[in-house]
């Protein structure tokens, strides 16, 4: 929904754009992955000297209150205007860690490495999916997925902008969503140079096809070049039936693993999207397997 709204409005990074306003009408809702993508995007636009405004029609009782609770405003660039007004206190600071189904937005910055972050995210998975038969394995896999993705952000963030990670459980939807978002060098730019020598076939694919191929090979047990962080974590996520959503600067891929033995994995691809720097990855795990 957020993607659709941005696409309708046009490229906020576009030339000739000096002011960008995000408006949240009454009744609008954001999920955690969209929230940290929005956070990254708003900070990116502000970093390019544009005026940015977030307008919440419902004020604190609506989306703004939710964003405050997950720590959104703690990380939102000071210069960004918030209407009606920025929250006077951070609900995330007050209640941090108080909800077992929430890991408030954490900053990912290589100079301030939070050693406990993958563990906190994995523990939340363990608590929330406790009834799954594969919970022990799932917890280990979840830790690896977060560790690899966050480490990737450290390795590839050649920008002063922070990356972010957050997790939220949605009991009514029977799912848990984890999101890692960064404004650094996109994964394609870090993957491509290595491919020219190792996999000429992959090197000639478009970004979108390459991404799908990475996931496809990631789940094959005998891929020739597996083991790299993204591929390894994608493989684990799919083994545990997680949906993946990856947003690149201009593209997005949603990957839905096969639920039955004969159904294929499905990839939904979107191209020519408005520019968003970095890599933004969301995983959705089922709470009950």
């Amino acid at each position, binding site marked *: 929904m957020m993607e659709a709204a941005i696409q309708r409005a046009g490229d906020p990074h576009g030339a000739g754009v000096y002011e960008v306003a995000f408006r949240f009408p009454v009744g609008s809702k954001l999920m955690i992955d969209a929230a940290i993508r929005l956070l990254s995007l708003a900070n990116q636009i502000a970093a390019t000297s544009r005026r940015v405004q977030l307008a919440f029609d419902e004020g604190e009782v609506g989306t703004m209150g939710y964003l405050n609770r997950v720590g959104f405003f703690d990380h939102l660039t000071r210069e960004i205007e918030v209407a009606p007004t920025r929250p006077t206190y951070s609900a995330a600071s007050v209640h941090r860690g108080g909800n077992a189904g929430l890991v408030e937005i954490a900053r990912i910055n290589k100079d301030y490495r939070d*050693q406990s972050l*993958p*563990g906190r995210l994995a523990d939340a998975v363990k608590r929330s999916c406790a009834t799954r038969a594969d919970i022990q*394995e799932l917890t*280990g*896999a979840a*830790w*690896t997925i977060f*560790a*690899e993705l*966050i*480490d990737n952000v*450290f*390795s590839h963030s050649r920008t002063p902008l922070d990356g972010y990670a957050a997790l939220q459980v949605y009991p009514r939807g029977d799912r848990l969503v984890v999101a890692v978002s960064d404004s650094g060098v996109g994964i394609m730019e870090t993957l491509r140079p290595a491919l020219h020598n190792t996999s000429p076939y992959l090197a000639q694919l478009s970004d979108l096809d390459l991404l799908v191929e990475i996931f496809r090979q990631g789940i094959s047990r005998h891929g020739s*070049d*597996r*083991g*790299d*962080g993204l591929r*390894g974590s994608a*493989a*684990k996520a799919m083994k545990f039936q997680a949906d993946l959503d990856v947003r690149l600067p201009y593209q997005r891929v949603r990957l839905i693993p096969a639920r039955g033995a004969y159904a294929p994995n499905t990839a939904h691809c979107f191209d020519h999207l408005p520019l968003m720097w970095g890599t933004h990855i969301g995983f959705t795990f089922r709470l009950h397997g």
Partner: protein
Amino acid sequence: MIALRDYMDDGQGWGREQGRQVFQRLLDAVEAVQDCIVFRVSMRGVDRADISFASETLVELARRFRGQKGFCLVDLSDPDVKENYEAAAARKVQPLIVWTRGAALVLGAQPSQGTRDALDFALQRPRTRAAEFVAERSGMTIANASMKFKQLWEQGFLLREESAADSGGVEYVYSRIG
């Protein structure tokens, strides 16, 4: 015996950078005991290890000393840690042997069809010679068996040392890692 946990800051092996630091500490420890050829690395106390960490530490150490020194893993029970070492070793085309109650499991690079039997034979005994393998396999020549063991040594599955053959020439004695 090396306890990997002793070289880590805590029980979580996370990321390339930490991996490189731990690698340096391991390298110092390995180089401090020049005469030691086989290192059994205990994974006890290592609660987590991601693919990047696995790749930068033990897989890199095994790759660097391939053919000269051998590194194997013991006390590895966590399925996720095992899977990550498997992925990291496969990516560097490096075999890594895990020992569990006397049984060997090869992670990462696998022997070819033609050498698998020779490797299984070698893993069942501390040391072996090509001639011993030939004696137990009908139709196998010394030259053929020697070639298989040489390949396994070059690829990092086995270690070897020279010894004087009964005939007066040089014969290689192959030993398993672990």
